[in-house]
């Protein structure tokens, strides 16, 4: 049995993809679908090592690539695949395309990245939230006071100035994402728009692509339905 659905959201920082992923997950859950949400860099055991290594500024492109792959593999082997195998829906906030963009922008050969992640099957749908540099930066600036070391790509010595470095790195990543969209692996959504506007596009695409009702839903008598009723009430 392997009739689960795998949906991924991708995009640069500040594209609003995580916001939309949450909205998508709760919408699917409210319909009684067995949905699971997983985020990049969130393996219960690996993430703390990654965090520590980043704090020490110890990761170089090679180990940056490997440790993120380890985190993903842990979630793939213990969350994503197990859910898909029993017919669940998994929403991945960032998938292997993030590795292609981030590790690729750090000079790791794309064939190597593809091979490393070859155990992860292509999602049934990958939404790419395409955002312009200005909008992305203004959203990031609102959310926090300064850029983190690896987020700004300071490990790459592109520029002394974190913001300049950030823009250079994001430029490289945008090119990689564009290539993935052109090759048909991701569906592009204009993410410069407001949250409700983007949400409308997301729901249109999902409704178009999947028959949500056909996905095994929760037993109507299950006590979890009380929570569901509460979520759906307007």
């Amino acid at each position, binding site marked *: 049995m392997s009739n689960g659905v795998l949906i991924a959201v991708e995009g640069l920082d500040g594209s609003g993809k995580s916001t939309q992923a949450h909205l998508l997950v709760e919408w699917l859950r409210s319909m009684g679908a067995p949905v699971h949400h997983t985020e990049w860099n969130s393996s219960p*055991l690996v993430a703390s*090592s990654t965090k520590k290594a980043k704090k020490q500024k*110890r990761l170089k492109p*090679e180990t940056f690539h490997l440790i993120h792959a*380890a985190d993903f*593999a842990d979630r793939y*082997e213990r969350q994503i695949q197990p859910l898909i195998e029993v017919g669940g829906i998994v929403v991945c906030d960032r998938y292997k395309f993030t590795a292609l963009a981030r590790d690729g922008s750090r000079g790791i050969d794309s064939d190597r990245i593809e*091979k*490393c992640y070859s155990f992860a099957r292509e999602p049934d749908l990958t939404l790419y939230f395409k955002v312009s540099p200005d909008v992305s930066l203004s959203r990031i600036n609102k959310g926090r006071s300064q850029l983190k070391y690896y987020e700004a790509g300071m490990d790459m010595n592109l520029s002394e100035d974190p913001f300049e470095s950030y823009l250079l790195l994001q430029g490289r990543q945008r090119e990689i994402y564009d290539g993935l969209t052109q090759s048909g692996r991701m569906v592009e959504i204009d993410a410069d728009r407001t949250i409700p506007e983007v949400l409308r596009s997301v729901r249109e695409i999902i409704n178009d692509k999947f028959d949500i009702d056909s996905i095994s839903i929760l037993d109507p008598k299950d006590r979890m339905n009380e929570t569901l009723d509460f979520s759906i009430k307007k």
Partner: protein
Amino acid sequence: MGTGRLIVFEGPDHVGRSTHAEALRQKLEANGVPVIITGLARSQILGDLIKSGNKDIHDFGPKTRALLYATDLMDQIENIIKPSINAGFVVIADRYIFTPMIRESLRGVDTDWSMNLYVNAPNPDLTILLKSGPRRLLQRVIYSGNVGTLSRFESGMDLGFSTIPTVSFLEYQSKLKYAFDKFAEERGFLSISTSKSKPEVSGKIWDEVFPIVKDLIFNDS
């Protein structure tokens, strides 16, 4: 690469890798050659997470574990092994890329896939595979009084051969041995049996190492 060398010991648990790595270190340093010994699960990034004593490592899926070992080793390669070789040291690796690869291959991880994780790992100047039959390994465990603490992982109990640790150990070690031998043959590793006495085995190792490090040996004349 620089002027140093990379010498790798591979082989199963209890075969005497660490003993012989240490004997080789003493011999080299007595001859004026600086040595650094590295091993698995010793990196600053992941050392604690993947030590075999930490039960978390055995809860991971095989691909995750392969990636964690690769991260650990590449961190040591970048921060210790490459700089030491460049500085003229002999680096003795008490296990390198092959042990994690072989262990996980028994758990269904494709060797080509694993190899791809290590494309930037320097090639050893010499890889020595220390060999011993499963029965002899088990005897060493028993003789040293450690049969009660034989770990589930060392015995390969996750593979479901047997629920009795010693029985599982024998089965697992014979599978490992087969995989190690095949690997050694394909890649031209030097295989040395450890059935002889410790000085004899050390002597054999030195015979193979000497030609490789000859030019590094200190000559005070």
